[in-house]
């Protein structure tokens, strides 16, 4: 066995008394892929930030090729050959691919400060070829797809001679095809002798890609070893620290007959066409589709954030005339967006203020003056926080951006629960949160349905929908192209429907699928 390229020796890190990492030791072999797994807050990011030169370790040390490694900053780490491909990409949308690649040092014309454009373009083409990306160097980066942008970042890393590349949740915004391309690229990088650290919540992907796997929990290494030692169940158990008998809580209630939301032939040219379905009381209805299927857009249209050309939407029997989120909220519809940071929460506000936001109009003491019934509101918020088990310090002073992803998501859901919605549309409800929190969110969804509400769950994670829903609708290219009852759930068939856009076998009972 060769010398490890990278070693962490008893690395520790504290933040104002709280332990982020404790006695973390691990070794990465050159030319291999190391999968790094752990819940949010387990310490993965901190460890990688130390490697990337953003933070110094408090205890222990890091060795690169046997020699001590103390980067003074990210630039230093880059010079040492370590590249960090973050979830939020570090590219400049307003600049071209060439500019992005050479932003810290362009090739110059002789001694003048002028950029040698031809050289720069030429080298860019070479760099792009190394990642199989076929776009013109002059393309503005904001015109590229997320997958292409990621490839540009990888190209940039390779171009600056990165020997170690860290991937942090790289597949979140990629289409399936782009994900395949990424995996192929990682395979190739490995063959070329580069070393990869791959962080992901997608345990299946990690099992696929990695040579070795390390699992962190609460800042410590719980278990590490070659990939053959692991399977999904053992990984989850190690991450969470206890056996989770099932990932998905069992449903108690049954689907009722009352139709809470009736959608009929809703069309918006270029986005969705002829969408029809019914959402019943007590039902968890899944909506599955690949990227570009129009699933998120449909959610936004149903909630009244975006307009539609034709078709009707009825909530609780009442036709919705206006394109107005406020109107929908009054009718009892809730909408949890896919991006909680941008649209779900006021990051700088307290947990209490965030959770009170939608229900505010219901807690008016005087209709005219608009004074807030603070006591009543406070009690309601406290109640929901307790019910959802949102972990935070003081509700009224703790700022929401300091909460973990899972607690943030619970805060978003709690905000809507205060309005006692009858129809709940959720777009990617468990994005970016760890396994333990996911289970809690699934329980909340179940409780909602059991209480008589209808939940429309839009998600790109098929396994999640299969485990959670009573019925799954499939969308492809803006149209409804399949419907599956729980009894006929079959991941392969559902996925095929999403890809082919063919009509799946229509089933008896519940409303049919439109053309």
């Amino acid at each position, binding site marked *: 066995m060769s010398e490890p390229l990278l070693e962490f020796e008893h690395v520790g890190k504290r933040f104002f008394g709280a332990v982020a990492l404790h006695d973390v030791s691990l070794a990465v072999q050159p030319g291999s892929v190391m999968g790094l797994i752990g819940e949010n807050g387990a310490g993965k990011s901190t460890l990688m930030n130390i490697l990337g030169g953003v933070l110094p370790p408090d205890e222990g040390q890091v060795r690169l090729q046997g020699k001590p490694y103390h980067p003074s900053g990210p630039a230093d780490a880059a010079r040492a050959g370590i590249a960090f491909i973050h979830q939020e990409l570090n*590219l400049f949308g307003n600049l071209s691919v060439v500019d992005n690649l050479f*932003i810290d040092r362009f090739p110059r014309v002789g001694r003048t400060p*002028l*950029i040698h454009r031809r050289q720069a373009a030429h080298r860019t083409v070479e760099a792009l070829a190394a990642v199989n990306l076929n776009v013109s160097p002059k393309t503005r980066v904001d015109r590229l797809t997320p997958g292409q942008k990621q490839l540009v970042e990888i190209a940039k890393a390779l171009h600056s001679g990165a020997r170690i590349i860290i991937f942090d949740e790289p597949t979140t915004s990629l*289409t399936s095809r782009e994900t395949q391309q990424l995996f192929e690229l990682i395979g190739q990088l490995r063959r070329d002798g580069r070393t990869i650290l791959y962080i992901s919540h997608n345990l299946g992907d990690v099992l696929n890609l990695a040579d070795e796997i390390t699992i962190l929990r609460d800042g410590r290494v719980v278990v590490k070893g070659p990939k053959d030692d692991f399977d999904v169940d053992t990984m989850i158990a190690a991450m969470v620290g206890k056996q989770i008998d099932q990932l998905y809580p069992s449903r108690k209630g049954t689907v009722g007959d009352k139709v809470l939301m009736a959608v009929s032939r809703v069309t918006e*040219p*270029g986005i969705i066409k002829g969408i029809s379905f019914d959402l019943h009381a007590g039902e968890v209805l899944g909506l599955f589709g*690949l990227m570009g299927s129009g699933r998120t857009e449909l959610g936004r249209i149903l909630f009244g954030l*975006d307009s539609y050309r034709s078709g009707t939407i009825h909530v609780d029997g009442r036709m919705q005339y206006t394109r107005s989120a406020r109107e929908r909220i009054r009718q009892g519809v809730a909408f949890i967006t896919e991006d909680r940071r941008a649209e779900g929460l006021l990051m700088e506000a307290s947990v209490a203020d965030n959770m009170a936001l939608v229900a505010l109009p219901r807690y008016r003491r005087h209709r005219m003056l608009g004074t807030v019934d603070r006591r009543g509101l406070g009690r309601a918020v406290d109640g929901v926080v307790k019910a959802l088990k949102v972990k935070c310090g003081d509700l009224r002073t703790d700022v929401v951006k300091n909460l973990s992803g899972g607690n943030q998501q619970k805060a978003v859901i709690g905000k809507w629960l205060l309005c006692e919605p009858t129809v709940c549309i959720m777009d990617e409800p468990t994005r970016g949160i760890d396994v333990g929190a996911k289970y809690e969110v699934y329980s909340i969804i179940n409780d909602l349905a059991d209480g008589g509400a209808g939940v429309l769950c839009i998600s790109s994670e098929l396994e999640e929908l299969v485990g959670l829903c009573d019925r799954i609708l499939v969308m492809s290219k803006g149209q409804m192209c399949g419907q599956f009852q729980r009894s006929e759930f079959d991941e392969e068939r559902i996925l095929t429907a999403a890809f082919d856009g063919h009509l799946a076998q229509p089933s008896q009972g519940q409303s049919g699928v439109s053309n």
Partner: protein
Amino acid sequence: MVVLRNVPILMFLGTFVVFGLLSPRFLEYQSLENIAKQASYIGIIAVGMTFVLLTGGIDLSVGSNMYVSAVAAGLLMQRSSISPVLALLVCLGVGLIFGLVNALAVTRLHIVPFVVTLATQFAGRGLGWMLSKSRAVAFPQSVTGLGAAELLGIPGPILIFSGVVLMAGIVLTRTTLGRQIYAVGYGSEAAHKAGVNVPRVQATAYVACGILASLGGFISVAQLGNVNSGFGEMVEFQAIAAAVLGGTSLFGGIGNVFPGTVLGALLIQMVWAGLVATRTDLYLQPLIAAGIIFIAVLLDSLRNTILARWERHNIRTEE
């Protein structure tokens, strides 16, 4: 679509045509030359402002900068009769120092540019008043002579403006520093992570703006002959308007000096000159000028919204 992407040029042509039709005098060579001359001094300052706006900052102190630099140069000329060239250097030097103060406050003290340049605007004006004892400072013939100078029939100010635009354009499009300015404007955190020396880039923008402000001031003085206590007031707003009309975003990362800011500066001057040529009531002029600028900014905002909506209809699909 094409319309929306080229608002500055279209506004420019539109205004030109409208005023040309309303008053033929507008189209006379002398009138057009005057417009270009007047636009030159605002234009130079607007180019400096463009640099700062591109980095995502703003400089409200250019007016006071102009004033202090001109006063300093003027007083020096009065006291020790130095050559006009030396006076220009002094003027630029003061502008540089002014810009440096802004630069340090923004990059080292981490104070928001709006507040920094608001404060230096206040303080700078006061400093200028203190030096000049609030009296007008006259410039000798040697300088005003320069103001009227021409080379090959083209007035000096226009030549200098063209030179400034050329250099600025090259820096922004063909040098590392220029590209880094756009990067910092897009996101200073991202720029830092990419290895860009963000404080240095920002400082350069503010210093350049300071120097260009004092240069613009000197050129203006060379035409006016003296500097009174209100010199340069409101100039910052004209410079910002010129840059924004030319397509520079107040949020940073978007914009260019040619054709952008040049068109913007010319557009503003055209509006003023057109109003005079059509003999509009003196008191109505600011109203109409404001109205035209409002329409330009409105068109720009509409462009943003419509483009965003159009892009929404072309979402990515799985292949």
